């Protein structure tokens, strides 16, 4: 493996760890029990 490969591998691994952190800690596993209204609170101008 060349140095470029190693740097690329570190970047990919770092990205994966970040996605994992974000999914678990910030998005609560995408199953926060918001019961269907997540993200609709402010922009639901349907009528």
């Amino acid at each position: 493996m060349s140095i470029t490969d190693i740097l690329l591998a570190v970047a990919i691994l770092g990205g994966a760890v970040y996605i994992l952190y974000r999914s678990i800690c910030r998005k609560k596993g995408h199953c926060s029990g918001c019961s269907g209204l997540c993200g609709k609170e402010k922009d639901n101008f349907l009528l």
Partner: protein
Amino acid sequence: MKTITVAVAGNPNSGKSTLINAIAGTNLQVGNWPGVTVEKKTATLKVDDLIINLVDLPGIYSLSPYTQEEVIARDFLVKEKPDLIIDVVDSTNLERNLYLTVQLLELEIPVVLALNIFDEAKKKGYEFDIEKLEELLGIKVIPTVATKKEGIKELLEMIKNIGNGIIKLMPKKLNYGEDIENSIKTIEESLRVKDPGLINKYPSRWLALKILEEDSLVMKEIGLEDAEKFIKKAKSHFINSHNEDIESILADIRYGIANAVTRDVLREKDGKRIDFTERIDRVVLNKYLGIPIFLASMWIVFKISFDFSAPFSDWIDSLISGHIKKWTSFVLNQIGTPEWIISLMTEGVITGVGAVLVFIPVIAVMMFMITLLEGSGYMARAAFIMDRLMHSIGLHGKSFIPMLLGFGCNVPSIYATRVLETERDRKLTAMLVPLMSCGARLPVYVIFIGAFFSQNAPTVLWSLYVLGIFMAVVLGFILKKTVYKGFAPLFIMELPPYRLPVLRDLMVHTWQKLKHFVIKAGTYIFAVSVIMWFLLNTPYGIEKENSLLGKIGKTLSPVFEPLGFGTWEASSSLIAGLIAKEVVVSTMAQIYVTEENKEVEAEKSLLEEFKDIIVSFVAAIKEAFENLISGFSIKSLSTEEDEELTPLKSKLQGIFTPLSAYAFLAFVLLYWPCVVVGIAMKQEFGSWKIYGQALVIHTIMAWLVAFFIYQGGRILGF
């Protein structure tokens, strides 16, 4: 542009969320059982020049502070002072619902009463004098059928007219009798002198009534001691003429008003008759038949889930592990991608994520079936049936509601413990919820069941769910005797009538339950697959067994030796399962499925491959319906799999025995709850302590159960 806030309040299961969905086009979770909404939610819509914030409040029976939902709803109504309250009333049960209406009128906020479920009331032969109801209470009344969007236009028009000041509405001050009215007056006058700020902050009549009732939260909030002179004076006046506590007297008066109004406005055409719901309940809630019927209905859910979804799972499997992997590898090779990136993409990402995506059809069908049971009203019966069993562990049937929700995902179930009255009940239920087998565990079950128990697939799956419930009872019993000592209060639960759920709602809510599995596959299953690939390939080019993950697995494998799966592969997969239970399967797929397992296929053109994909999808649809129709004699997922095992399943057959496979499944069912459940517990209870306890207790319990299954099975000669 004017903005108004409209609170949507009402008894549990009166259809508040369905009404908001009908008005605003949102997809709030609904279900035919009390307690679906446990927190307030807002939907915003614009009608002409008016912006309306609709706030869905949890269902409540009164404005007393006995449960967290009541506190949430009451806090909003009293502190936020909405411009209008839509009181959603179940018209098949007017008198009971009016008890809350009477209390809402005390808030001195305009009220529009949505006489919901009006179609069922008419079917029952009820006739309402709507004008009289409006006149008696000083409100507006609109009949609605939220599920069919009937009356929604009229309701919206009314909101608009009140919001724009075209219709002026002020609820009537209902007379509570001379004694109470005098006491209210005394308190109001004293407050006006003593603390005028309070009168501006809260509705004065409501505040006076709460002071009279000695409402603990209100007393604390306003900072008045019970001993205040004027309160004593008001009460003494009262107590002298009645020999009962004030809260009970006020409750009697409110019920009296609700009863009198109902008698005035409601006419029943026919006499009392035994309706459809009662007839079914006589069987379903039977003392001896209730639990067997519940267990049988669960078995049917699993049977249908397996049979209908199997062909689709096979189709996705062949698509991902065949075509997509091949195409990805081809494209990456063509553009000169390094070998390790090709391996990362095919053996890491596609194999790992694909292993989970394959089971989306099973999860989808099961979530559909669970939503169907929820919407029909049967799930509320399940909680009622389980009441006796739950009492043995110091809880009551209401605790079974969050646990039932856990069959979908344990995370919302932790939040749903809010429906319970005491902190002890909530914590104890939260400790038991992770033992309910969530959808994320399904991929693990299905892959092992397909490999080892193909002839009895639904029964084995059913046994795992029942084992989860059984172990929850056992653990609950132990915790009740040790950590969570206490007494379960009497369980009173309203059983909703049976209803045929609306197909659109069913599909929407199935999707809501399924959605997070799909998002998870694309986000953190993807991320974990990448991380696992690195752990399995560090240092690069080495045998997997000697990789970083292999070494960790090997170190821990002796712990699992007595359970029949003391291999580094099983240990590594189980550790990864802490992130999410599906990861057990995706990690196993990465470990076991290698290029050498791949079958060599004849070269085909791209067009031929597309044709194959479409033909096999059509065949899958046909087969799914055939399975469903042929019913219970069935060639299910499993029997199909006998003919053609996937590489992962055949590999598993070489490593596990049926006995060690079942012990492994029991371990996966019971061991540590995933980290997201931990985060939910931390949020709900304010510390990591409960999750810490759950991690340790569940893992020890899982080890012991798997040990007894494996060693017991060996002694019995399995």
